[in-house]
């Protein structure tokens, strides 16, 4: 059984439909990449899965780990093991990174009926993960994302993923705004989180990130639909030829089918 199964997912902002029938299955252990030009709906897909209320799901269903995902609040999805790394991580002045991480870890543990971590066990856990992302421990005392560089923000996202240990990790354009060194560190962190129990969905505009996080499957999103799927070689082809050649018949068929 797939860990994540998306069937005919449609989503809109107001009356503007952005996702127009997404079908996708991810099995545990797999890494999938969603690629596509700007405006194709790839970030929307990530946001809808995380539970952002800006989008209205108008049709379709999503099952995650055997549960109906779309009926869950964002915090319940997180506690069920869904994690989205933000494209633009949010600054939260006045809340230290360690306080935030501890609140998150313990909220998730509470949901799962596990005892809360005490300060010592929590620090042990976090310190181990900090090393993975080559982050200084004094990072923990800084307010969440405030004054962080682009690279620090993205590393902080992956740190949270490592600490929360989700079943599904969604990386929403995690490569945007990263120089090559930061990209390598982030990719190394993600790769170390690959495991047979977990699947990862990498949303990206560019193939560059996929040199470091090598996917099992690549899907191309265009105008709210997956127009092509393949293995990692598809990403290389897109890199060489761009997205133009994929002007799928979908949109034209749609227009004709209105049949005046």
């Amino acid at each position, binding site marked *: 059984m797939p860990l994540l199964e998306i069937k005919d997912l449609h989503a809109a902002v107001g009356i503007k439909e952005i996702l127009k029938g997404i079908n996708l299955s991810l099995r545990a252990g797999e890494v999938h990449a969603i690629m596509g030009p700007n405006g194709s709906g790839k970030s929307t897909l990530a946001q809808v899965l*995380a*539970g*952002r*209320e800006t989008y209205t799901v108008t049709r379709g269903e999503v099952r995650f780990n055997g549960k109906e995902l779309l009926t869950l*609040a*964002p*915090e319940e*999805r*997180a*506690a069920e093991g869904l*994690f*989205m790394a*933000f494209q633009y*991580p*949010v600054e*939260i*002045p*006045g*809340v230290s990174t360690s306080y*935030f991480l501890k*609140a*998150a870890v313990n*909220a*998730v543990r509470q*949901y799962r009926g596990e005892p809360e971590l005490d300060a010592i066990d929590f620090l042990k856990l976090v310190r181990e993960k900090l090393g993975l992302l080559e982050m200084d421990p004094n990072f923990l005392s800084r307010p969440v994302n405030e004054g962080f560089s682009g690279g620090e923000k993205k590393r902080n996202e992956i740190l*949270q993923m490592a600490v*929360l240990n989700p079943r599904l990790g969604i990386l929403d354009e995690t490569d945007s705004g990263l120089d090559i060194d930061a990209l390598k560190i982030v990719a190394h962190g993600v790769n170390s989180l690959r495991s047979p129990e977990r699947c990862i969905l990498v949303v990206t505009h560019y193939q560059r990130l996929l040199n470091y996080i090598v996917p099992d499957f690549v899907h191309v999103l265009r105008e709210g639909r997956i127009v092509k799927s393949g293995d990692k070689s598809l990403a290389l082809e897109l890199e060489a030829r761009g997205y133009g050649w994929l002007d799928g018949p979908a949109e034209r068929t749609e227009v004709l089918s209105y049949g005046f």
Partner: protein
Amino acid sequence: MIEPTTMISTKAELADRLAAGPSSTPAWLAELRREALDQFRAIGWPNLRQEEWRWTNVAPLTKVAYRIPAPPDLGLPLEEWREQIAPYSLRLRGWRELVFVNGTLIPQLSEWAGPDLRISALSAAVDSQSALIRRHLARGVALAQDGFTALNTAGFQDGAFIHVPAGLQPDRPLHLLFFTPDHPGPVLVQPRNLVVVDAGAKVVLAHSYAGASRQPALTNAVLEMVLGAAAQVELIQLQREAAAAFHVSNTAVQLERQAAFQSLTVNLGGALVRHNLQVRLKQPGGQATLLGLSVQTGRQHVDNHTLLDHASEQCRSSELYKSLLGGRAEGVFKGKILVRSGAQKTDAKQTSRTILLSEDAVMNAQPQLEIYADDVKCTHGSTIGPLDEEQLFYLRCRGISVAAAQRLLTYAFAGDVLNRLRHEGMRQYLETLVRGALKGLSLVEPPVERKPTREEKSTENS
């Protein structure tokens, strides 16, 4: 003193009562009180047509028939009084404390021993320290400013007189606690404090106002303070009046050369509250930091008016006022920065931030800059809006519930002010109080969908 338990209803009757007051004070003070009374008769209570009062309607407090309360009945066992003031006392935290009940100093409840500071009731010091008091009393707060300052000068009951001699740095901070117990009817309490900090001295002072009155008591307090050259003062004002109470305070601070002043005004109680805080930077090199935090719910109305008067060159001021408004609470912040001609190299920064936690809460914030010098830097910014949706979503995506995320964000918002307070013990104390107040705000409702209004402006003249 004024006859206790006398009913006063109108402005004229109030003035008559005060006029019939004591004649035992020194002649100069009697004269000052008479002058103040004439002022009060002439200008009366403020009203909405006055620019400085357009957002705060004091009509409810002017229609109440107040009694001037008698000094507390010390026939009651002292233990009972101790119990009543215990929730507000800082004695156990190592502070010196002067406790005033109904505006009268109660030595049996107070403790200010120590050879260093000169502390006494103002009423007692009027005789013993006459010259010093005469030099400073009613010099910071203008009688003509509004009816409240005139009324206080005309009829103040008592307060603290504190003199910190040059270079002195007392080992313990000092707390003035003004407590109004429950009365069968409305009462008027008028504390008056005078603080003289000589050159190079350094002191931490808190004044708090608390009450148990179920009737609409009015506290009308005035505090005047002068800082000599290079003196350093931290002044904390904690307003925890009873739910039905009116509270008006006027605080005037004057800084000489290189003096440094930090204030924090915290509002957790009261029904109708107005603070006027004016800081005058009289000589070069002065520094003032003004902080404010209000946590309001129900129909509480809290108005903070501040005036930073840059009267000399090379002075710096920075100001941060924050409000968290739930229920149908109303907040007002008006911050005026006055840069007088000749006050070159002034560096003034003012920020006010408000989070509206309910659709019915209202905030009016207005900066006002008056600049008569050409080489200054003045900035101001103001934000009013609900909790940040992006921050809430981010926290929820990490498994944190809506209620917990709201608590985290509101506490962080408040903590940003408290963290700037230098005095560690007071900071911890206030953190506990504010945490409690935040728990009292109803946050479980989903945040209101409303676009934040944002204004960030800056004025720079170089």
